[in-house]
């Protein structure tokens, strides 16, 4: 009896602290997006030749519904929205840092693949990022990207012209949209510096094969989810990624892919956030363009 009381006391004492929310390193304190005028930290800055014409830039909001948890999220479209029914569009799923201003240069770079605004590029701030309402959750990420795909679909985009691109944290919704049934099924998947799973993060950090449930309830598991992806897949990863090691994260995802076509670009000398500039912007854009055209 005494032991039972002690055990129950311990269970009651154990609280519900989880480390899940710390995965999302968002900044929702801004009052407006600055894009080209943003002066905060970014991974690289493009010169004026990559500028997006004013008439090919649209910022708008979408209402995202995550099983009743509704949030107004911010989105940008780089390209001509009137020709989405004819264009190929890259849905860019950004990483976990700050908000769209931080990733603006990356979105612009993609909008210059194959020529200025040759492909349309859509980017959103997930709920809890930037000006987007709500609290970031794993299911919220998927709901937010899904509502974006639905917007593109309503503009006339078809699956065969949709390419989805996930960087770092964005690899989770990108892989999820490619593997499961949502508003649209991308025809191609590009992952840059993806993470395999929370479990790998735990194991890398501890050197032990300890269960990830001790620290997080996150179920994101790109290494497993990629097994359900059949679309052509391009994986890009910095060899010197000091944050999500190429060997334990990217290589596992690449190895687990069983689809029709895959291509790996291991970038010598690149860390987590500098793959495009280490490759060189022209080379980076060429790799992306060639993959999309395959």
């Amino acid at each position, binding site marked *: 009896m005494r032991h039972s009381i002690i055990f129950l006391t311990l*269970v009651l004492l*154990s609280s519900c602290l989880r480390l899940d929310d710390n995965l999302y*390193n968002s900044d929702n304190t801004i009052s407006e997006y600055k894009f080209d005028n943003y002066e905060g930290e970014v991974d690289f800055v493009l010169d004026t030749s990559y500028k997006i014409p004013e008439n090919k830039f649209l910022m708008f909001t979408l209402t995202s519904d995550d099983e009743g948890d509704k949030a107004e999220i911010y989105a940008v479209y780089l390209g001509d929205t009137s020709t989405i029914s004819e264009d190929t569009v890259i849905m860019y799923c950004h*990483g976990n840092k700050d908000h769209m201003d931080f990733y603006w240069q990356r979105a612009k770079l993609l909008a210059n693949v194959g020529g200025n605004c040759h492909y349309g590029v859509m980017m959103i701030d997930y709920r809890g990022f930037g000006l987007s309402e709500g609290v970031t959750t794993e299911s919220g990420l998927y709901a937010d990207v899904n509502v974006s795909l639905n917007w593109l679909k309503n503009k006339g985009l078809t699956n065969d012209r949709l390419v989805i691109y996930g960087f*770092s944290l964005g690899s989770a919704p990108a892989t999820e949209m490619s593997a499961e049934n949502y508003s649209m099924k991308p025809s191609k998947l590009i992952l840059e510096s993806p993470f395999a799973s929370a*479990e*790998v993060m735990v194991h890398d950090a501890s050197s032990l094969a300890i269960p990830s449930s*001790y*620290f997080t309830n996150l179920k994101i598991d790109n290494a497993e989810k990629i097994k359900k992806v059949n679309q052509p897949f391009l994986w890009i990863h910095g060899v010197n990624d000091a*944050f999500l090691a190429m060997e334990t994260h990217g290589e596992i995802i690449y190895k687990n892919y069983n689809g029709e076509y895959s291509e790996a670009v291991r970038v010598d000398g690149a860390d987590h956030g500098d793959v495009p500039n280490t490759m060189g912007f022209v080379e980076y854009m060429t790799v992306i363009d060639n993959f999309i055209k395959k």
Partner: protein
Amino acid sequence: MNSKNILILIFFSLILGACAPSRIVKPLAKGEKDVSFSLGGPLIGFAGTTIPIPFTSLCGAYGVKENLTVFGSLHVTSLAYGVFQTDLGIVREMIAQKGFIPGISIAPTANLMFDKWESTFSFYPAIDYNFYWNYKQSQNYFYVGGTNWFELRSTRAHEETQQQHWIPAFQIGHTFKRPKMSYTIEAKYINPFVSNNNIIVDYRSFGDKGTIGIYIGISKRF
């Protein structure tokens, strides 16, 4: 995911062998009881500075014989995250100190963990050894030693082979012993043969291997 400053928090309790100092370095007297509280952990880069991870644990010990003490501990920080973590062990004095020749103790320990989220159980055997010197006729002592954790699982995430099965650490510490209270400070060099590069946690160390841990402890004897 560019910022380590926030994400390191995700895995701040990950080097479990580093979440506490040496429990009992020198066995208690027969029949003596000891309750201790410890704070500290591996050094990490956080918000532009270096801090020790604030692990906390409680430990109780009992002197079974003059050279044999049993102990058990509860990891309070883990408990806050829904993980019941304890280590149960014995400390045996193998050689008593003779002048400058140190006393030597060995502590085999069973580290047990169980989470309330997915009911996952883990067992990590470990063995500590310490060399200790009482000095200047006082009960204060200085010690150096090692901690060795063993990973018994053969596979890690996604059925990859678990490469590392021995996780060593080396410690150096000092205990100020008063009539009823003791105060300990300890530094550990954890996992010193493994690179600390290319992982999500920004461990601080002498170079690119392992991490340094800093701990303080306070105990009361009965």
